[in-house]
């Protein structure tokens, strides 16, 4: 039982972003999608969410066609309505889950819920959006750069929250361009480059992934710097 993505072709106009993209994400797992800017991570998430229609391919969840109502998505830059408080935002998110304990969850991040969400700092907005995702209570969570803008303490708290969400049965996909955040929170990492999977790594192979990336990027950068400084 898993989230099964088969031969996905997605693009904008005549520009293809994901080509023949296939992936199996085991249910109740935390899965990392690693890739540089423009690799296709956000496009993949938007396709799973149903906001981007693929040219071809299939998306299945637990053996049936994926219903987009089963997916919650954390945007890289979450949007909040002007002149609405953080509490109102969470109330809206919890509309299908009226027993969601807003105050108890907020104890983790301690946000000033009576203030306007739009006036929050980047990190606070991210924390609020994460609480919103949890309030939506969906089996599949897509988290686009969830660690961006978080302070040290919040990052640690975030790792614990993710671990607990996985324990209660959520399937989590995290996209990031920071390797460390993925190796700390994921069981498996898929390395995406130019819309195609380069390789999948499980926990045992994480050091190998880190070394490969370091070597590749260092070589590229060093040769470019050599050209500049010679």
């Amino acid at each position, binding site marked *: 039982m898993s989230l099964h993505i088969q031969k996905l072709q997605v693009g*904008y106009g005549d520009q293809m972003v994901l080509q023949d993209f296939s992936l199996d994400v085991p249910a109740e797992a935390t899965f990392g999608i690693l890739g540089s800017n423009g690799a296709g991570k956000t496009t993949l998430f938007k396709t799973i969410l149903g906001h981007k229609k693929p040219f071809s391919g299939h998306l299945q969840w637990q053996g049936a066609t994926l219903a987009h109502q089963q997916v*919650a998505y954390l945007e890289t830059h979450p949007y909040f*309505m002007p002149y609405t408080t953080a509490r109102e935002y969470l109330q809206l998110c919890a*509309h*299908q889950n009226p027993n969601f304990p807003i105050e108890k969850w907020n104890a983790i991040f301690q946000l000033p819920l009576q203030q306007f969400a739009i006036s929050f700092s980047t990190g606070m907005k991210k924390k609020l959006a994460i609480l919103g995702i949890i309030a939506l209570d969906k089996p599949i969570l897509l988290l686009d750069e969830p660690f961006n803008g978080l302070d040290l303490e919040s990052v640690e708290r975030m790792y614990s929250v993710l671990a607990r969400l996985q324990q209660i049965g959520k399937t989590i996909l995290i996209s990031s361009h920071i390797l460390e955040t993925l190796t700390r929170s994921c069981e498996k990492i898929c390395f995406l480059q130019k819309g195609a999977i380069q390789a999948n790594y499980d926990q045992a192979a994480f050091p190998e992934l880190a070394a490969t990336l370091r070597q590749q990027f260092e070589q590229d950068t060093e040769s470019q710097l050599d050209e500049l400084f010679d």
Partner: protein
Amino acid sequence: MHMLRTINLWLRIRARQIWRILQTVGWPLLTVFTLVFAGVVLMLLETMQQLTDWQLALLLALLPLGIHLQRKDQGFLKLLHLRPLLIYLAEYLALVLAIGLLLALFYGKWLIIPLALGLSSLVPLLPTLPPKIRQGTIWQLSWIPPMAFEWRMGWRQQVVPLLILLLGCTGLSYFTVAPVVGFVIIALLAASFYETAESPELVALFWHQPNFIVRKWWANWQVYLVVTSPLSVTFLVLHAQYWHVYLALLVLSAAYFFFLVAYKYAGYWPNRYKVYNQTAVGLFLLGFFSLFFLPVSCYFLWRYYRRATQQLHYYFPK
């Protein structure tokens, strides 16, 4: 039952939102507004008395239509697993019902309520006009000065409606009203260009120039005049007898663009990327339609210009 609860929550949040926006105007100003607004509404009601039930219902349905065309929150609602169609329907029906009841009470024409509700229920089915980020070739638009970069951004986003308006209104300029409508709608469309704030680096780039706000306004207003130049030419050639109308349009558009620029920077802080100006623009424009409101519009110009200068001085000390 669940859906009703959600809609109820949404409508309550929207009502609070409106209340909070009104609060930002300030109570003294709001009291003046309410009194003057009541006067204007009474005058309008007198004029509208001759309208038939269908015409009144159509007028009412135009209210949600105006809101609907400008909506940009479908993505947000979908992320929250709220159905935009139902949410919009609930909002529009609530709005039309509230105003429709007042009109029905005033005129004793109760038929307008079901008619207006029926027409308004079709509005959520219409597409919205959100700005689209175009892929592919990027127009350089080097004829627009860098200080008016809002127009470069706006032109790229809204090129289709802008061209349709320009061509349509120029083509129909045999009718006096057509170029005037073009002037007004292009100006209204341009308000959204000033809803995106630039990075602090870009502000700092121009801020050192003396009279930054005034220079910025001048650059932006000039671009507006260039964009609407086909309308100006046809209007002045075909309807030269109404030169005073054109003069009025020039003065009003100058004031309007000064307000847009000042308002953008009045609430500026580094890394703020969104400035919501629709309500403020709406209030400012009331002065153009009614002399009662003119002092308020003038006050707005002065107030936001002062605030913008203070704000920029604070974040970018010279």
